[in-house]
């Protein structure tokens, strides 16, 4: 598709920041997906020439940070990287001052990952650039949900009327929350699966602890990373017991319905929430998810650039 046609599709966009799927309408989400699909055919176009993206990752990340950088460069933009260990954040400079200092160098997009839920919202009240949430605490990771939706659309042909199970550590998962809000808005049937210690009762979805019963009904099974580093002790007794009840083992893959796909936001704990057989199975779309990440991030940058100051 020609760049002009693509940009004209971006004009209806209204949001200056991308803080969460909670803030997007169904139409907004479908627009991102359609622009993302069109981005695949862009070659040597530089609509973001002269624009800078500030990759502000206060928590470690490999794929998301690289994916944003790649997306910006493919559109002709520049990338400023932030590495916490070498920065003044460790010298006690506040989040506010660090962001504003970098921003004074002329930044269009601030992509932030932070351990505190709400950090991007806080930042969006203080800076002039467009803030993109690349993961905040246990709140949201909107571009992950968007790339998951794009993957479902490409593999299953639709993003509505699907049965989707999110399995594992829902309580600490921003991926689960962003997917939940987005999937519900698009009219999908979402089931949260996990032990009661890892699944909040108050979320608006079907909840079960019986993975074996839930599995055969699903079109999509999304395994969540068991976040050992965030877990306080006592939320489950042992890794072996977790695998017994909630691991996607070879046997459980065999119980999946025809055409169902296996997803995982990565990084995977092979042998824990997902077995090697499941991760590498033909039904697994894990690598497609990664590739689609660049496309949805290109789409998000193009859309926000319509409104960015």
């Amino acid at each position, binding site marked *: 598709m020609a760049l002009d046609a693509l940009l004209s599709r971006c004009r209806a966009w209204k949001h200056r920041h991308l803080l969460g799927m*909670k803030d997007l309408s169904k139409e907004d989400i479908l627009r991102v997906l359609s622009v993302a699909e069109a981005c695949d055919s862009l070659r040597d176009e530089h609509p973001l020439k002269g624009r800078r993206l500030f990759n502000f990752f206060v928590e470690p990340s490999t794929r998301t940070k690289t994916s944003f950088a790649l997306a910006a460069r493919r559109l002709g933009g520049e990338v400023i990287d932030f590495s916490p260990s070498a920065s003044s954040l460790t010298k006690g400079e*506040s*989040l*506010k001052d660090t962001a504003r200092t970098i921003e004074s160098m002329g930044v269009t997009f601030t992509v932030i990952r*932070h*351990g*505190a*839920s*709400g*950090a991007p*919202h*806080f930042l969006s009240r203080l800076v002039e650039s467009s803030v993109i949430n690349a993961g*905040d*605490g*246990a*709140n*949201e990771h909107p571009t992950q949900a968007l790339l998951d939706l794009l993957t479902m659309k490409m593999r299953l042909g639709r993003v509505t009327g699907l049965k989707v199970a999110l399995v594992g550590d829902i309580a600490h998962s*921003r991926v689960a*929350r962003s997917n939940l809000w987005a999937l519900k808005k698009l009219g999908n049937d979402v089931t949260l699966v996990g032990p009661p210690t890892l699944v*909040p*009762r*108050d*979320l608006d979805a079907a909840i079960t602890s019986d993975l074996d019963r839930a599995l055969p009904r699903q079109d999509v099974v999304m395994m969540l990373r068991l976040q050992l580093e965030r877990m*306080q002790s006592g939320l489950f007794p042992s890794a072996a017991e977790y695998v017994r009840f909630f691991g996607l083992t070879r046997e459980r893959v065999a119980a999946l319905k025809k055409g169902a796909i296996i997803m995982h936001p990565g990084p995977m704990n092979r042998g824990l929430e997902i077995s090697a057989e499941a991760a590498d199975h033909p039904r697994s779309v894990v690598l497609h998810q990664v590739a689609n990440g660049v496309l949805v991030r290109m789409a998000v940058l193009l859309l926000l650039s319509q409104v960015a100051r």
Partner: protein
Amino acid sequence: MILLIRGGKPGDVLIKDGKIAKVGRVSGRADRTVDARGLLVVPGLIDMHVHLREPGREDKETVASGTAAAAAGGFAGVAAMANSGIPCDSAVGVVYLLAMAREAGRANVFPVGAVSKGLKGEELAELGRMVDAGAVAFSDDGNPVMNSELMRRALEYSRMLGKPILSHCEDAHLTRGAVMNEGRVSAELGLRGWPNAAEAAMAARDVYLAALTGGHVHIQHVSAAETVDVVRRAKRLGIRVTAEATPHHLTLTDECLRGYESRYKMFPPLRSRADVEAVVEGVADGTIDAIATDHAPHTMEEKEQELAACPSGVVGLETALGVVLSIKGISLERKIDALSAAPARILGLKSRGRLEPGAEGDVTLIDPRAAWTVDPSKFLSRGRSTPFEGMKLVGRAVRVIVGGRECS
């Protein structure tokens, strides 16, 4: 010195040499007359839960700024919690606080001593010597007394002194890392929650320890419906328990947190609508005796951070009266009682909280019809973080008289 407050409701008040001399219709000469027509004349309000921060954290608040804020908000007296920068856990701390209050010359300060040395929750502080110096109650507020044995001994020992233990009810094992109320909103926002049970379970422990020891326990800042229930049942059983609630827990819910703004972060946290209704009902029927602000000033730099990093606590002295007067479902008489006579009763301030001959000359004049908008930049407190910023309120204090002297 004779001061006459004339024309207010319920009547004229004559203050002579710092004490109330006559109430009702007063004729005769006065050194100074205050026109109170159209105003409510009530006993000097007492906020029994205030953090003055001094000594040690004068960047957050000082005795002078805190008592000026109190007077501006209509309070003739405040009970100062012990968790100042340097904890008030000995007679020296009590004496210092009273000296600073005298020097400031604004609202009265009633020192609350620590329950445990250094607020560490391990060893009993010198409660008796603090009473000698002028302490009116004991509390490790800011922290719970997690050790039940220490709480038991504190209640037993303070019985000898005739002073209450003010309890910050929080099971710290259940609240580690918490940012807000646990419930639907925290689940949606991905924030760690502070469940109602963390408060109610400790309140239940405390009332049974009061029953065991015969001591007087006062439950601070009640926020959960379950806690109201615990207090109500304990009172029916004749246990010596009293309680307080804050203006913010009487009005706001955890829905406020949806924008992740630090001015809504305080502990205990804002709860659900059902909890707010239960706390209002508790105040209305007297289960909750007092209304107190938990005025907890922090610096701008501290509050202007992401929610998980910023300290909990908001200011309350300069908004409490307007907020409380706006609450529906509690009578005006009960509101004034909860802000004056009730805290005086709980803290054993026998000559305060009433407008009667012989009582201290502490009086608050209220304009119940004054409409105003909360503007933190005008606060006399050093703290500026309030959940009521920008809110339109009706009713405010126009004057405070402390010991027969006009203080605002």
